[in-house]
C-alpha cells in the first residue's frame, strides 16, 4: 500500500546534512511508490529546498520563522504538528541526530504513536516495513515494525545509502506560514567546540585515541592525521576519564555509537564497552603496542607498534597519496 511520507530535513552552517538525503532514501522505500515530501525549518532555508528534490523528495515544504533560527523543542514541535495536521502523513522519517532524538519522542507522544529510533536498515515484509536497529550499543540487533497507526522512525546517519543526486528532478517548493507561540526553552548561546567541524556520528572516517595517547598533547598527531583525511577525532572512555580530552568525544556503550567507513583506533586496548560503540564500523584499523590487546580481535588491519611513531608516518603517507 502506497504511503505518504514526511521527512524532516536538517541543515547546518547553511548546508543540508547528509542524513537528510539518507532519510529521503529510507522514506522512498517506506512509501512503496507513494509520495515523499520534505520539511525544512529555519530562519532562511528556501535556497536549500531544490537539493532535497534532487535527492528524491517529490516536494518540499519550507517553514521560515525567526523563532526557528535555533532549534527548540517547542518551536519545531509547533511547526511539525501544524504540518502533520494539515498533511496527515502515514509515515515520518527523522535523522537520529541531536535534533531528531530530542524532537521525535515528544511528537510521537502527542501523536500517540510508536517510534522506532536509531534505524540502520529497512526491508519490506508484506504490507509492513521491518526496521533493523542496534541494541546494547550494537552488541545485538533487533528487527521491529509498527503494524498499525503512524510509522515513525529515526535513522542513524551513515547507514542507509542516499539516492543518486539528479539535478534534472523537479518538484514543488511551498512556503508554509507557521504560527509559533511562546518558547519555553530559549537558546542563549551556542559555543562551538567540535574542532574539525566533522561530527562524529556522521563522519566517514574517525581517528580515535585511548589511554595510549598519554596526554592532551598526545592527541595532536591524531588530529593531524584526521585533518589530512577529513576525519573526526574520537576517544575511548579511558582517554576521557584521564582528562586527555572532552567527554563529547567518547565512543562506546556510554558515549557515542559510531559506524564510519573507516575507524582508526590508536592506543586503544579495546574494552568491551568501547568495542560496543565502534565494532560495527565498516573497516577497522588498530594501532597498539600490545599485540594481545583485544582491539585486534575486531580489527581488519593491525599494526603492532608505538602510535607516536606510526601515526605521524601514516599522516605523511596519506599526504603523499591524497594530493
Amino acid at each position, binding site marked *: 500500500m502506497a504511503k505518504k511520507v514526511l521527512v524532516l530535513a536538517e541543515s547546518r552552517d547553511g548546508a543540508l546534512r547528509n542524513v537528510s538525503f539518507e532519510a529521503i532514501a529510507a522514506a522512498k522505500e517506506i512509501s512503496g511508490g507513494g509520495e515523499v515530501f520534505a520539511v525544512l525549518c529555519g530562519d532562511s532555508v528556501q535556497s536549500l529546498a531544490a537539493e532535497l528534490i534532487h535527492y528524491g523528495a517529490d516536494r518540499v515544504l519550507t517553514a521560515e520563522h525567526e523563532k526557528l533560527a535555533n532549534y527548540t523543542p517547542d518551536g519545531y514541535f509547533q511547526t511539525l504538528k501544524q504540518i502533520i495536521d494539515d498533511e496527515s502523513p502515514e509515515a515520518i522519517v527523522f535523522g537520529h541526530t541531536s535534533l531528531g532524538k530530542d524532537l521525535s*519522542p515528544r511528537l510521537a507522544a502527542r501523536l500517540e504513536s510508536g517510534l522506532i529510533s536509531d534505524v540502520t536498515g529497512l526491508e519490506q515484509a508484506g504490507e509492513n516495513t521491518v526496521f533493523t536497529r542496534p*541494541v546494547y550499543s550494537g552488541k545485538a540487533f533487533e528487527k521491529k515494525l509498527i503494524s498499525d497507526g503512524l510509522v515513525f522512525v529515526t535513522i542513524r546517519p551513515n547507514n542507509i545509502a542516499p539516492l543518486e543526486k539528479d539535478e534534472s528532478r523537479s518538484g514543488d517548493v511551498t512556503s508554509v506560514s507557521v504560527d509559533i507561540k511562546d518558547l519555553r526553552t530559549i537558546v542563549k548561546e551556542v559555543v562551538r567546540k567540535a574542532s574539525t567541524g566533522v561530527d562524529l556520528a556522521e563522519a566517514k572516517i574517525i581517528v580515535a585515541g585511548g589511554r595510549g595517547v598519554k596526554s592532551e598533547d598526545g592527541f595532536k598527531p591524531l588530529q593531524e592525521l584526521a585533518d589530512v583525511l577529513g576525519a573526526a577525532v574520537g576517544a575511548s572512555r579511558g582517554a576521557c576519564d584521564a582528562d586527555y580530552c572532552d567527554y*563529547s568525544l567518547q565512543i562506546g556503550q556510554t558515549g557515542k555509537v559510531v559506524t564510519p567507513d573507516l575507524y582508526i583506533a590508536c592506543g586503544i586496548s579495546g574494552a568491551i564497552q568501547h568495542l560496543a560503540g565502534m565494532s560495527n564500523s565498516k573497516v577497522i584499523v588498530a594501532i597498539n603496542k600490545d599485540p594481545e590487546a583485544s582491539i585486534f580481535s575486531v580489527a581488519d588491519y593491525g599494526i603492532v607498534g608505538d602510535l607516536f611513531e606510526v601515526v605521524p608516518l601514516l599522516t605523511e603517507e596519506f599526504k603523499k597519496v591524497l594530493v
Partner: protein
Amino acid sequence: MNIYVILKRTFDTEEKISVSNNKISEDSAEFIINPYDEYAIEEAITLKDAHGGTVTVVTVGDEDSEKELRTALAMGADQAVLISNEDLDSQDQFTTSSVLAAYFKDKEYDIILGGNVAIDNGTGQVGPRLAELLDIPHVTTITKIEVNGTTVNIERDVEGDLEKIETSLPLLVTAQQGLNEPRYPSLPGIMKAKKKPLETLELDDLDIDEDDVEAKTKTVEVYLPPKKEAGKILSGETPDQVKELVSLLRNEAKVI
C-alpha cells in the same frame, strides 16, 4: 523542591550479550543502574543539597529492580517507587512513558531528571515523551544546570558543541556524561537505605488499563551481529607496514 528521578535497571556495560529464543538472555547477567541515570541521581542529590526538598526515584520494572532503587537510596535519594510491569504483555517506550505519566498525574514536581538514553534499548524516548504527556518543557543531554528561583540555566551537549539554554520550572531534563561524577554509596548510606521508604505500585493502583498502554511497536527478531573474521596483522619495518596499510585501505578495503 520536589525532585524526581526516573531510572532504569540495565545490563552491566561489561556484559557479553547472548540471544536465546529470539530474546536477549538474562541468565546470570549482572545488572546496574543505567549509567546515564546515575548522573541524574547525583544531580538530583546536588540540587536537594542546594535548595532543600525531597528526591524520589521512580522506575517501571520487575521486582528485581528493587536492588537498583536501594542503590539510589544509598547514594542519597529519600524515597523510591517501583511501578510493577509484571502485568504487561508488551512494553515499549510508549508504554513506559504512559505509565510514568499516570504516576505523575497527581504529583507535585518541580524537576524530573533522567538519563539521556538507556544503554540497553538505546532509544532515549521516555524522557521527552513524558515531558510532552505532562505538558512541561524538556532539555536533553545536559552537562550543567543551575536553578535560581523558577529560572533554570542549562548547558547541553549538541553533537560536541555546547548550547546555553534558559528555561523555567517545572521541567524535565536528561543527563549527558560530564554532568557530574556520581558518588559511590557509602556504608552508612547503604545501612540507611534499608530503612528508607520504597513503595511498590501495580498498574491498578494507577488506574491503568493494560490495553491502553500496550506497545505500539513489535519486535520480530533479535540476533547477534555476524562475527568478524580475524584481521590482518602487518609485519616488517614500521615505515613498510605504514605503506602497506595505506595501500590496503586504498586498493583492498577501498575506503580512502
